[in-house]
């Protein structure tokens, strides 16, 4: 056994773990953070977009030295057809503000920086160390951890589980279940390198400006999923992800889906001549509000992906992760400063604070969305995108057909694919889930 005792042990050094460790250490708690990767960021995969507001709440002047790629001034939503896309673009010079709202980042670099801040704040960060087990006392209270290194257990008042999406540690200790295939998406991505000027020309940006494309439709072949393309400084991240249960059912492999996405005539010209230097895959929690497990207990709290805190509709994961990490850190600090023990009832403060934040409010708003999109995936990800793209072509193509007839054809294509009742039903269900 190791004699030394910590106020808190944080398991994992992703966004949630770093936020929790930083928040507690900077408030003077004695924190040990354990990470299985060679360094913070070496195992962490994300698109990746950083939302400044949530980062500011942790490190207000992060822009001074954090490795940021491009600030986003344009967002494109593409509904993909076989050879086409119907797009909604929003671009605004307002996003060229002094303190931009969103940035693309490369996690391997950003997390390394974040981890250096955690160290500066006074936390002890130990990498290449996997926590294998939670140590519980006779009453089931979590009192420390065991690692894959020799030298025995390490004890702490509270363990913050920021172990990532699979959450094996918590599952092994019986604190929650391993996520079901319907609750996680498998995403694959590649980093395509090309000269900075080429990115600027192709995406109509200059300097540090960036653009993103979020794509859904026929590219996921009827599965619940999305593709994306994010501009970094000298490379473009391109990826696609679908629910694991859908992959199971369709037998399609993620990399074939990505290959097809890259070959799509709307995407291929954007990537032409680039060099792939990196590829990665990751699971994303997609279960939403209804999949959130128990968030605290005797001597432990769970944050980030391990707690299924991800807003799939708005593609927000890391900011929910870092916010939950920060809130957990603040709650633990409050309990500690009152000199109260880290019991479940005292740690429920974390849940209360999280419930009051945008994290749970947003997830609650979309609580029915994951199920709806999943059950209706054929309609929402294949039929409708095809119909919309066909309708757009019909609208744009000039071929001597009277306009009145064109309209009739479009309406008919919708009603024959989905009956009037089906169309209204889908619209109603979507509206209700959105509300």
């Amino acid at each position, binding site marked *: 056994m*190791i004699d*030394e005792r910590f106020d808190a042990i944080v398991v994992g050094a992703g966004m949630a773990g770093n936020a929790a460790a930083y928040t507690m250490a900077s408030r003077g708690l004695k924190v040990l953070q354990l990470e299985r990767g060679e360094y913070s960021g070496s195992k962490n995969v994300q698109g990746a977009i950083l939302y400044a507001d949530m980062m500011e709440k942790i490190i207000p002047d992060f822009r001074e030295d954090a490795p940021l790629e491009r600030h986003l001034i344009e967002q494109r939503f593409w509904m993909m057809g076989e050879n086409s896309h119907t797009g909604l673009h929003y671009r605004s010079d307002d996003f060229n503000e002094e303190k931009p709202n969103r940035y693309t980042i490369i996690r391997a670099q950003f997390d390394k920086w974040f981890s250096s801040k955690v160290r500066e704040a006074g936390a*002890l*960060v*130990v990498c290449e*160390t996997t926590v294998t087990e939670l140590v519980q006392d006779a009453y089931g209270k979590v009192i420390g951890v065991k690692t894959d*290194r020799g030298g*025995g257990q*390490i004890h702490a008042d509270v363990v913050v589980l920021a172990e990532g999406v699979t959450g094996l540690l918590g599952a092994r200790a019986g604190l929650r279940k391993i996520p079901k295939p319907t609750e996680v998406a498998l995403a694959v991505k590649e980093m395509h390198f090309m000269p900075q000027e080429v990115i600027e020309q192709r995406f109509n940006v200059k300097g540090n400006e960036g653009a993103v494309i979020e794509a859904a439709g026929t590219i996921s072949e009827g599965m619940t999923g999305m593709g994306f393309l994010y501009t970094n400084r000298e490379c473009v991240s391109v990826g696609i992800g679908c629910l694991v249960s859908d992959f199971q059912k369709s037998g399609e492999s993620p990399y074939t889906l990505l290959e097809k996405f890259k070959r799509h005539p709307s995407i291929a010209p954007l990537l032409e001549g680039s060099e792939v230097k990196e590829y990665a895959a990751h699971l994303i929690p997609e279960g939403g509000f209804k999949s959130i497990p128990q968030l605290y207990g005797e001597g432990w709290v769970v944050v980030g992906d391990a707690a299924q805190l991800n807003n799939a509709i708005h593609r927000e994961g890391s900011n929910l992760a870092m916010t939950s990490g920060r809130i957990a850190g603040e709650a633990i600090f409050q309990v500690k400063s009152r000199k109260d023990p880290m019991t479940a009832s005292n740690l429920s403060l974390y849940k209360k604070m999280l419930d009051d934040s945008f994290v749970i409010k947003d997830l609650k708003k979309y609580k029915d969305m994951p199920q709806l999109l999943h059950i209706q995936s054929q309609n929402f990800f294949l039929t409708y995108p095809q119909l919309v793209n066909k309708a757009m072509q019909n609208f744009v193509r000039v071929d001597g057909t009277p306009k009145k007839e064109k309209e009739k054809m479009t309406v008919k294509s919708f009603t024959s694919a989905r009956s009037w009742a089906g169309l209204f039903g889908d619209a109603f269900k979507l509206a209700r889930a959105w509300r």
Partner: protein
Amino acid sequence: MHIVVCIKQVPDSAQIRVHPVTNTIMRQGVPTIINPYDLFALEEALRLRDKFGGEVTVLTMGPPSAEDSLRKALTFGADRAVLLTDRFFAGSDTLATSFALATAITKIGETWGVPDLVFTGKQTIDGDTAQVGPGIAKRLGLMQITYVAKIAEFDPADRTITLERRAEGGTQVLKSRLPCLVAMLEATNEIRRGTMVDALRAARAEVVKWNAKDAGVTDLNMCGLKGSPTIVKRVFAPSARSEKAKFIEAGDGGNLSEALIAEIFSRQPSLEADLTALARGF
């Protein structure tokens, strides 16, 4: 007992790329590792310390980022780490490197006790010269034992060490007085994982950082580019072999081994003559 282990941070050879025009190694963006040969030296030093007591100091010269390698060495269980870093050291060849390291080892000796043993790896995987270890030994007036496959005996009272040295045609068993410098061969041991206690200590440890002056270097002309007489005239990648692999098929008799031997003999006529002569002798 005090053991100094010299390590080097090198680009991970598994992920290395060669610049297509200059033929030099592209170090930027390539992950770094501790030179794998040095890990055998470090493990051997740690084993001696565990058995006979004392301290292990790891030493490296390199850019500030080389601190990562030292911290890793601390996680394995080293007691102290010294980073020799100064722009005056930039561009050092093996002569200047061994000068700087030897000077630093003298300083380490003055600060924490004269080392009984200095360990190095056989060579580094980026330079492949195997010159720095012997260079250090010569400058410090130490016995040098290179290509060491095994430490057979260590007698702290008698202040001797017995080692097995791999030499051409066999193994030499050598006994040396202390202090001496040992350059370890590969595959002699396996680096340990380091316990949680080591990991915690390493996370807290301060790596000692010395510039040229701190290390006791008085003549800067011996350092870096100025102190490096080596001139690289040309670097080139070996061209691809023009000879193609040949597929050998069994002849009419259907005997593949005979066809293979016939093919070898057709290229090495003297081998056929020798073997025939040998066979006649029986």
